[in-house]
Every structure is written in C-alpha cells, then in structure tokens.
C-alpha cells in the first residue's frame, strides 16, 4: 500500500484507463487524417501530460514525439501562462520555440480542465506534408537559415475558449502548399485531442479529480523508481562513444560521454562543434527525447515510456553548439543527422554499460543502432491541374538494424530491440496509384556490409521513375555517405546510403546523398540503396551454412562469401576443407598487415588474475582482476587502467572520402575485436571504462 491511497489494483485499473484514452486519441488521428504519412505510415502520436507537461502515457508509434510534447506544453505555459482556459487549443511548430522534431511535426495541445482546474494536457503531434518554405515538403538541404525553411509559429491558439481562430488557420493555409491536406490533418490532430480530453474528464468524474491526480503521480513515481533500479544494474563508470555527422566532405564530431553513477545517467556532449548553416542543427530537447525514448526501449522495454524515465537522466549540450542551436540556425533535420548520431552514440554507451553490468536486459544487446543510416526523400510534381503535390518517400527510412549479440539484424527496420515498431511502408501499388511513378524494383539490398558472426540487416533498395508526368523533383536527405555505422564485438561496419540517376540510354550518375532539387525526367529513373548498421563478432566465425543461405538468396556473391567470410562455395555446396584453409589464411594476413599495438602487452597476466571471475569490459573482452583478456583466446590485452584497444595490433583500410575502416585485432589469433569506420586520424570511437576497471589499478 502507498501513502497516496491508491493500491496496486487501483493503479492498474487507472493505467488501463489512461492507456485507453491515449489509444482512443491516436485511433481518432489515424482515422481522420488524410495524408498517407499519418494514416498509412503512422507518423503521429497522442500524448497525455500532467498539468506541468510531465509525460503520463502516450499512444501512436513515434516515441520520439512523446518526449518533445512536454517541451511544447512548457513553452505554451511560459508564453500564455495564466490565460490558458478551457476550450483553448494551442499549436506550435518552431523547434526554436516550443516546437517539435522539425517544423513539419506540428504539436497541437489542448489543456484539460476539471472543476475549473487545469489537470492535464493532451498533445498530439503529426508530420504535415508541407509547412511552406523554399521547397515542397519544407525539408531542403539547401536552406542556410531557419527563415528559408518553413512557416514557423510559436505557441498560438487554434481555438480560444472553443472559438475557432480563423485568422491563425488562414495564416497556415496561406503559407503551405497543400492547404486542404494540411488543414484536414491538423483537424485530425484536434479531433484526437478532443476525444482524449473527453475521456480523461470522464475518468476524473468517475473516480474524483484528486484520486486521478494521486494515481498519475504514483504511476510516475513507480516508473521512476524502476528506471533508477535498472540504472543501478549498469556498471558504474564512464562510457564514451564518438559519432560522426557528414556534410559532403565536412565531418562533424559528435562525442558522447555517459557517466553511470548509482541510479543516474548523465550524457555530456561537450566538444560538439558550434552551430552551422546546415539544416541539421539540433536542440537539447530533441536529443533528450531520443536518448530517453530509445534508451528506455532497452532498459525498460517492458514498461511504457513516461516522465519517470526522464527524471533520472540529465543531458548536457553546450550552448550555441550544433546540438544546442539558436536562430538563425536551420533545423529542418533537427531530429535526423546530428541528433540521430548523438542518440546512437548515447544508446551505444547504454549498451556498453549493460554489457559491463548485471542487467535484467543483458539478453537484448546490439551494436550501434541504425536510424542514422536512413535516407528519406521528399518528391514533388505538378498535377495536371497545375497544383503542386508530392510525397515523402518513407521507404528511404527503412535501414537495416544492427546485429544483436546472438542473432542477425532485421532487414528494413531501424531497431531490432524496441517496445514497438515505428514506420510502415506502403504497398508498391498504393505508391503508384497515388503518385505519378513506376517502380522498377524494390528489394532487400544485397551486399557484404554489416558482416559478422551475426550480420546486420539490410536497408531498402528501390528504383523508380516518373510515369505520366514530365518530371518529379526530389530532395535527397541521406545521413551517411562515407561513414557507415559501426558494428560491435568485431563485427564490421554497415553500409552508407547511395543514389544513382539512370538515363534512358543507360548512363549512370551517382548523386550526392544530400541533394536539393534533383530532377528526374520522364525516361530516367532513380535508384536508392539505404544504409544499414553493423554486424557482431568476427565474420570468420560465422556459421558457413548461414553464409551459404545468403549466397542462395543472392544477398552475397560467392566471391564475397570467400573474401569476407572465408567460406568457399562451389555450385551451392560448402567446401569445408577450403573454408578452413581460407579462414586461417585470412587471419594470418590480417596480423601480417597490421601495425603493432600502441602499447604492446608482452607482460603476462597479473598474478592470479587469470583465475578471477570474468567481467565484461567490451563484448569479447573480459576484465579479470586488473588484467584485460580477449575472451575467445585468453590473450592478455592490457593492465588496468590502460585502454584495452592500445594492446591490439591495428589494421587500417581506406574506405574513400578520407574514411578508414580500422580493426583492433587479437594479437595472437588475428580475430577482430573491434572494428570502426572513422575519419582517418581520428581517435578510437569507443572507450569503455567501468569504474571497477579504472580502480583495479590501485588493487
């Protein structure tokens, strides 16, 4: 029993009711919106928040929305404070002022009053097809400031005490390219707010306002307590993962340092570069929403996201940096390039701390996640009536997941571990029915990327051209062009995204992954190959049967099977003897080609360490006492507090674009222990320093 008077039964009944409210709001949005982005691909959410903006529960699929809605409500409260009244409906879309992930992800907010008191908010977010600005879809890599990008509104009222604010609606209608679609989608978000409000008020009437508020508070406290408990299962210490964001030949370092201290997590992005005039500047509330949303998808995957999971987490983004920008910084991709790189780095820090600790979720480990491998596009054309129309190509958001520590990655999916799936693609027939295109093929991208004992999933590979119109014009929004996501535990990096424009005559032209205004004319077609995350474990340890199956499915060629996996396949059959020989040769060749360790460790293990219990420092590397061992071979790599990678021979291969694939090898067997794709000359992207390792030095 708790001091609030709500017991474990009443809490569950209340929780069911609140979830039902969010679901009903979400269903209403999905049923009434007309843009396929919302109705078919489900890029929307319905969120219930406490009076101060704390997240209670959410419906819909986009968990990154859930975390930003509180920010929107707090901005609305700061702007309108005392004047917030029953019947008001607020709108905002400026990431620099209360808005969501980017200007297209509008946030509609409705204050819920019971007996004259503000008790809660419903905040619904959805992706609008267009919010004005220089290109259709409001998402241009060519924008250099936020004034070019989109119509931006601070928190304003769509309804004032129930009365529609026609002038605000007219401002929006006037500035967007598809006003009917946007208005109808907006009205869908409002309808979802109203349904959720009515149901919430119904609960308050049934149980009493105080009972409702007590229950909501108690649910928050319990979720927080559990999140803290799970954080204590991580190994205390400091974990650092460095991600990189690209802009043509520019490289932006996004360093994340996570400190686990007791029941708290602190993420520090100190060292991030200053804000730029590229469209991927971001904001702390967006990064925080992604870190907590994705991180809790692992740590508390069995409990719905709520404010309790935000409370033990702090995030530091240095002022005026690329992760904490201010106007005029353009922000159309505020939730994509830099932000997804930052949240991937944070997510991987959590994974490392889980691996090093004794966590309930240790079975759910994977390498760096795939969202930053996506390459969304928006496409526009002119209708026969002369109006602009277009769509967002969400097949471009279908990357391949990282391999887990015990299984291959999932194709056309961004997270293999998560509470629920996010986007769905539409049928080829729906795409062709709605838009003037003909698809040549759509498949799982073949290739040897993401190689590992368990390989990564593959992204979407598709080709289409205009059909029935003279041309379609696209904005290509690839995140990764040279630097693929890394694998884990010796798994190799995944793939970057690629675009190829083909003329009718068969000429090919590779396009930069970030391209504004790409014109594909009748007779031409464009192919995209979406990137993917990395593998886990050394590819030479992969089950040859699994390699043979990938060859049969044409994911791999026989040549790739031999070169990458050391598996010899002749007429579909595995040559076991030649496979063994090839694998041994490849291991030897790695050691021959590698440069020596920066801190060679010829000394034996500390006295007695080899017999001490093993604790993970990094997948495949164990700490026993004050000595770090390669798990598979038992070879000594380092003595505390040195970094274990310093004891590894290092192999570097150029990948193009001044990027290298760098492998840290077991000094005796030649097995891959850690592989990373980094700009040439960059430091190692992973430093895992559980406190027990750094402190083992003094033992």
């Amino acid at each position, binding site marked *: 029993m708790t001091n609030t008077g709500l017991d474990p039964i009443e809490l569950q009944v209340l929780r069911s009711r609140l979830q039902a409210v969010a679901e009903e709001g979400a269903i209403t949005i999905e049923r009434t919106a007309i843009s396929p982005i919302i109705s078919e691909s489900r890029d929307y959410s319905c969120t219930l928040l406490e009076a101060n903006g704390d997240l209670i529960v959410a419906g819909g699929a986009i968990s990154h929305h859930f975390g930003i809605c509180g920010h929107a409500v707090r901005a609305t409260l700061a702007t309108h404070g005392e004047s917030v009244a029953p019947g008001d409906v607020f709108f905002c879309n400026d990431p620099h002022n209360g808005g969501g992930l980017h200007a297209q992800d509008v946030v509609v907010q409705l204050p819920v009053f019971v007996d004259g008191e503000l008790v809660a908010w419903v905040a619904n977010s959805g992706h609008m097809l267009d919010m004005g600005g220089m290109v259709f879809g409001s998402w241009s890599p060519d924008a250099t400031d936020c004034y070019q990008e989109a119509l931006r509104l601070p928190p304003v009222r769509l309804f004032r005490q129930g009365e529609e604010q026609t002038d605000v609606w007219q401002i929006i209608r006037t500035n967007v390219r598809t006003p009917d679609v946007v208005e109808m989608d907006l009205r869908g978000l409002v309808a979802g707010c109203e349904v959720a409000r009515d149901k919430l008020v119904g609960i308050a009437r049934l149980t009493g306002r105080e009972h409702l508020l007590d229950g909501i508070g108690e649910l928050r406290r319990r979720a927080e307590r*559990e999140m803290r408990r799970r954080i204590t299962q991580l190994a205390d210490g400091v974990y650092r993962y460095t991600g990189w964001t690209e802009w043509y030949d520019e490289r932006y370092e996004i360093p994340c340092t996570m400190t686990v201290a007791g029941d708290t997590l602190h993420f520090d992005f100190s060292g991030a570069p200053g804000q730029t005039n590229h469209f991927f500047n971001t904001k702390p509330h967006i990064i925080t929403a992604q870190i907590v949303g994705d991180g809790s998808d692992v740590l508390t995957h069995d409990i719905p996201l709520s404010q309790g999971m935000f409370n033990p987490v702090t995030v530091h983004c240095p002022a005026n940096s690329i992760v904490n920008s201010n106007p005029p910084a353009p922000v159309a991709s505020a939730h994509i390039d830099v932000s997804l790189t930052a949240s991937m780095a944070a997510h991987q820090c959590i994974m490392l701390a889980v691996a090093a600790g004794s966590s309930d979720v240790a079975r759910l480990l994977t390498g760096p996640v795939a969202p930053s491998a996506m390459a969304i596009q928006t496409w526009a054309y002119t209708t026969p009536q002369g109006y602009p129309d277009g769509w967002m190509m969400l097949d471009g958001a279908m990357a391949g997941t990282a391999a887990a520590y015990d299984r291959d990655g999932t194709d056309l999916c961004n997270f293999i571990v998560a509470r629920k799936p996010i986007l769905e693609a539409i049928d080829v027939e729906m795409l062709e029915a709605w838009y003037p295109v003909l698809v040549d093929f759509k498949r799982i991208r073949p290739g040897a990327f993401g190689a590992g004992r368990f390989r990564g999933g593959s992204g979407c590979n598709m080709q289409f051209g205009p059909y029935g119109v003279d041309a379609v014009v696209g904005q290509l929004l690839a995140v990764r062009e040279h630097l693929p996501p890394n694998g884990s535990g010796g798994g190799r990096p995944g793939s970057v995204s690629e675009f190829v424009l083909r003329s009718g005559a068969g000429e090919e032209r590779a396009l930069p992954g970030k391209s504004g205004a790409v014109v594909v004319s009748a007779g031409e077609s464009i192919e995209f190959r979406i990137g993917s995350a990395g593998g886990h474990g050394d590819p030479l340890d992969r089950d040859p049967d699994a390699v043979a199956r990938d060859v049969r499915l044409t994911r791999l060629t026989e040549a790739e099977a031999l070169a990458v996996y050391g598996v010899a396949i002749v007429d579909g059959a595995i040559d076991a003897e030649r496979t063994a020989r090839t694998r041994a040769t490849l291991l030897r060749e790695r050691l021959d080609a590698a440069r020596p360790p920066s801190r060679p460790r010829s000394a034996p293990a500390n006295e007695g360490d080899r017999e001490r219990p093993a604790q993970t420092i990094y997948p495949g590397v164990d700490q026993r006492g004050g000595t770090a061992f390669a798990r598979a071979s038992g070879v000594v790599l380092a003595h505390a507090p040195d970094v274990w990678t310093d004891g590894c021979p290092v192999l570097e291969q150029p990948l193009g674009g001044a990027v290298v694939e760098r492998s840290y090898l077991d000094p005796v067997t030649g097995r891959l222990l850690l592989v990373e794709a980094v700009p040439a000359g960059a430091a190692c992207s992973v430093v895992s320093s559980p406190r027990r390792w750094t402190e083992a030095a003094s033992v």
Partner: protein
Amino acid sequence: MGIAEEDESVCVGVDVGGTFTDVVLSAGAQVWSAKAPTTPGALGRGVLDACRLVAGRAGTTLEELLPKVTRFGLGTTAVTNTIAARTGLDVGLITTRGFEDLVPIARGKRVSSDGWLLPPVALVDRERILGVPERVDRNGTMLVELDRERVREAGRELVEHRGARSLAVSFLWSFLNDANERAAVAELAGLFPGVPVMSGADLLPVIREYERTQFALLNAYTAGSLDGVVELADELEKLGLRRPPLLVHSGAGSISVAEGRRMPALLAESGPAAGVVAALEVCRSAGITDAVTGDVGGTSFDLSFISGGEAGRRSNGELMGIWTAMPMVDIDSVGAGGGSIAWVDSLGILRVGPRSAGAQPGPACYGRGGTEATVTDALVVLGYIDPDNFLGGAMVLDAEAARAACTRVGEQLGLDRTDAAWGIWEVALASMARALRARFAERGVDPRTFAMLSMGGCGALFGAALARDLGIRRVLVPDLASVLSAFGAAASQVRRERSRSVGALFPVDPGLLGGIVEELTRAVRDDLAADGVAPGDITVELAADVRFHRQTFELPIIWDDGLDEAAQLRQRDRFLDDYTARYGKGAIVAGAPVELVTVRAVGLGRTARAGLTRVTPAPATGEPRILGSRPVYLGRSSEPVKVPVYDRADLRPGQQITGPALIDAADTTSWVPPGAGARLDEFLTLEMELS
C-alpha cells in the same frame, strides 16, 4: 433457445472446436444439443459421434435422421488449426521480377517478441520465391508481356528442386489486368496437374499487392486442410444425407465443400463467424440493431460488432500472426480470458494476462497442476463460480487450490486473499474494457447506444460489469450460449462476396462503374449457383467502400441507388453524413475529394436454415423460484453477501429478477449486478437492464 423450422426443415448445425464438437438439431419447435470430444486428425469421427448423440436425444438414430435433414451446416477449425499450428504445405511463390522480396519485407511490419522486433511469420520461405519478367501499370495497361517459358522454368525449379508442394502466383496490378497472371496459372496447372495453384487476382482482385499475395499464399498453404471435411461429406452421404453439407466461412455465410476447397483460407474464422451469425439472430429477435458481442474463453476475449442489424466486416486483418486481405466478419481477439494469469510487474502493480494457463495446466482450481492464480480462480474465491457445479457440473473445481493461488498473489502485494481475487477480476475487466473502448473508437461509435451480447461459457459473468464500465445499458445472454456457433452453422445464409478495387474520385465514369457492377453481379450469381442455390433464391446487394482521397480507412456504405452521376453524388453525401456523425463536422474540409475505393457485390442464397422462434410457454405465475444462495463478494474489502441463485431452466418469460442474483444454466452462469433487472424474453434470451 427455441430453434424452429423454416420451410418445414430439419436442421443440423455442428461446430468443431478445439476441445469439443458441438451439435444443435432443430425440428419443428423442438431443439436438442449435444457435445462430443473433438477428434484431432480425424475430424469426421467427432462430428459423427456428436450427431449420433443428438439423434439419440431426439429419440431417433443417425441413419433415420440424416435423410430428413434439409440443412447440414458445419463450422470447422480444420483450416484454423493448420494456420495456428503452422502445419500447412510448403508453398512456392512466383511473382513479378524485381519484387521477390516484398513478402519477406512485409511492408516493413515488424512484430514485438519479448523485447525484439522481428519480421512477422512468413508463409513462404524466401528460397521458394521466384520472379519472372512481366509488368502491368496502374491503368491496367500491359507493359511487359509474360514469358511463358520463364514461368515453366520457375515452376519446375520450385516444385522439382526447392520442394514446393503448392504454388501461388501474384503479380503487380493483376487485379486490374489479370492476363499475365492467368496465363502463368494456366502454364503451371498444365505442368503440375496435382499441385494446387492459387492466384491473387482470381481469388481476391483487390489493390495492395502484399495483402493480396498473402491471401493467395494462405490458400496455397492451407490447400489440403479440408481433406477431412471432404471425407466427412462422403461419409454423411453414405449414411443418407441428401443435401450436401455447407461450410461456414469467415464472412459469416456458407459455401459448399467444393468451393471451400477452392478457397480454403476463407474458412480460417469459421467457428467464430458462425457465432456471429447466431448473435445476429439473437439481436434480430430482441429487436436490437446495434450490439457488441463478447465471448470470454480460456485464453482470449473475442469481440465483434453488429451495427444497423449487420455484422461488422473488414477486408483485411491479422489471422494468427499473418496479415492478409480477406473478406471477414470483424472479430477481435484480446489476450484476456478465464485462464489469464495474474502477476505482479516490476512497478509492483497487479497485472493479468496476456500469459494464459490455457486448458493445460489450466487455472489452479482445475487441479491439473496449475498453481498460478487465474481469473477463473479469482471468480471461485469471490463466489461467482460454484466450484461444485462448474459448466453444469461437468467439472468439480478445487476451491482450496484457487484460494491458495490468490493468497500467493496477495502476499506479493500486501493484500489479503479476497482483495487479491477482487483485484484480479477488476484488472481483467479493465483490460477488456480498454480493448472495447479502442474498438468503439475505431468505429467512431458511442457505446451508450449499443447493447452487449455475452457468449461463451464465461461471457455472462463479465457482460454486465463490462457494460456498466462502458455505459452500455442492456445486456443479452442467449439461451445455450455455449453452443451458439453450432446454431449459427445451421442458421447462416449462403453468402458470397466479390469485390473490385476502383480507386477513382467521385463521380466515377458511369459506364466504367456499370461494367464493374455487372461483372461482379454475374460472378456472384455464378458462385451461388456453384453452391447449389437455385436462381430464384438468389439476391444480390451492392456495397462500396468510400473514403477521403488518400485516407487509409474506408467507410462501407450500402449502395441502394443508381450508378449515374447524380446517384453517385447522393451516395457520396451519405458517406459525408456518416463520416460527420462519427468524427465530427470539424474533421472535414469543405470540398475535399472523396474516393470510391472498392465496389462489392454480396450474393445471398435462400436455403433451409434454422432460426429463433417465439416460444409460448405457460404464462408466468408468481415469483421465480430460488434454487439456493451463494456467498458472493460484491466489492473491495467487504463481507460476502448471500446472493440468490436461480435455475434458468425454471424461469418463464415475464418473470422479473432484481440483482444481485446468479442465474445458473446447464453450461453458463449469468451475473446480475445489484440494482440491475433481468428477465427472459419470448425467445428465452436473458435480458438485463442496468441502472
């Protein structure tokens, strides 16, 4: 339930369930029912056992009975079991080259499994999918003609080298122009006479290649599942049955065995659909047009909707983890039933389900080795279930085991046994109510205008409590609620449906629309003729799915108007009215284009079938007789109240009972909450009015 004859008929309805085969026999105003164990692997034996039993109860023998039977209806889980147990045939798929991965990609749909996100279960291994060059565009124009030799090569590779035992063909846009797909099917059928070949364009010509292909695959996968039904039909004929049996399909209608074999996947929801047919009959007799049905089984809570006197339908959905297009009655299954297990989550909060004790080991009180507390155990502890008379005495429950199980849950929560039991019940109700609310929201309808119809052995204990939570005032519990599906199998009309995607904005070219309607109507008439319906007994109705352009969800409308432009605009306005009624005026932008998505022809065949008839028993005199009483807990932390127990068989229409009360029938117990009124109507349906 009075099952009476229609056209002097003798009707037999059978429902082959997972555990029991139920049978209902009606002749004149008399009705008998029986149950026999289902015989896995030899479906016919259980059916014949049940039929012999019921014949005996009617004072005759099976051999004497069968020649008189004018309607033999069968609901079967044969196909359901094949899908659920994943024991179908190894399927090969031939599709448009360049799109071989669309089925494995599954539209990007990923399913949660214990923290992981994984692709849904596939009906076909990727190694058995081959592409051939061919292409049709969105207008139905042929872009690349089929290369027949490549089809033969692909077929030989699949059947001779990759182990395919049945084949599916599904090409892009084949529902608009099926020339390539038809040609491919013909080649394959000629090449492999013994191998079933299923075509999406032939079976279900609707847009969305993923769902259409899945439907073709599902049929190829379940080809052969009805072999036992074919044997049974032969056996019944030998025993004297003159009219061949009819099978209940997922669309709550019936088809012949031969047609069932042509499209076996249609039978995937046979049993539950038969239940909906019965529910419709019950609602009609009670004068109710809008109702939600709730069937509480051991592992799930199944619910369906009846609106405007028609069963809610959908054109796609998930069947046991497989997403597919299929015309079906809209039945949702929620993981909350009598066997759902109570547990304490990591927040220290009581949860119930979705894990279920099922029938084995079952709830703790079954005494079959289960020790975890389930909803059934809680109901025993709270007094709602009489452990000595469970399912009409079919089973004696171990009340002590139920108490011990609830005590253990209580210890984890700091609650005593009865509070824990109460909590289990309340939490189970809350999750069922949550599912109900979501379904009402999807339809944009107000629960307060609906009645609730409780089905299944346990449904009547939950009906009133759920109804109260949703603001539903009226609850119905039909007679013989536990054999409703068998009754439905005898009561369903022959029903065939053909649909075609149109995908054009209003108004559509009347000539085009007329052609589609004519073609669909002809096809549906042919279907009904194939089921043995005489031309004079056929009626065809038109319906359409309509939505705002590019919306994902359609609203079905009855098309009872002409096809000219003016008539079309009237139909469009009807859609706008319906939409506004559901989602509010604010949800509509003036002038937004409206799309005619699908046209559907529904053919109904008049056949002998069972129906409910009014009974005229001796008029009710005096108060209903009280059998006894049971101590029942009516709330949290309260003392049990002695609640009167009535025998349903004893009640007469017109007699009034005021809750709290329990009404025991042979196979169900109904709970009448405090303050609610209950009475039998003239069809022996128990009706409750909630205050």
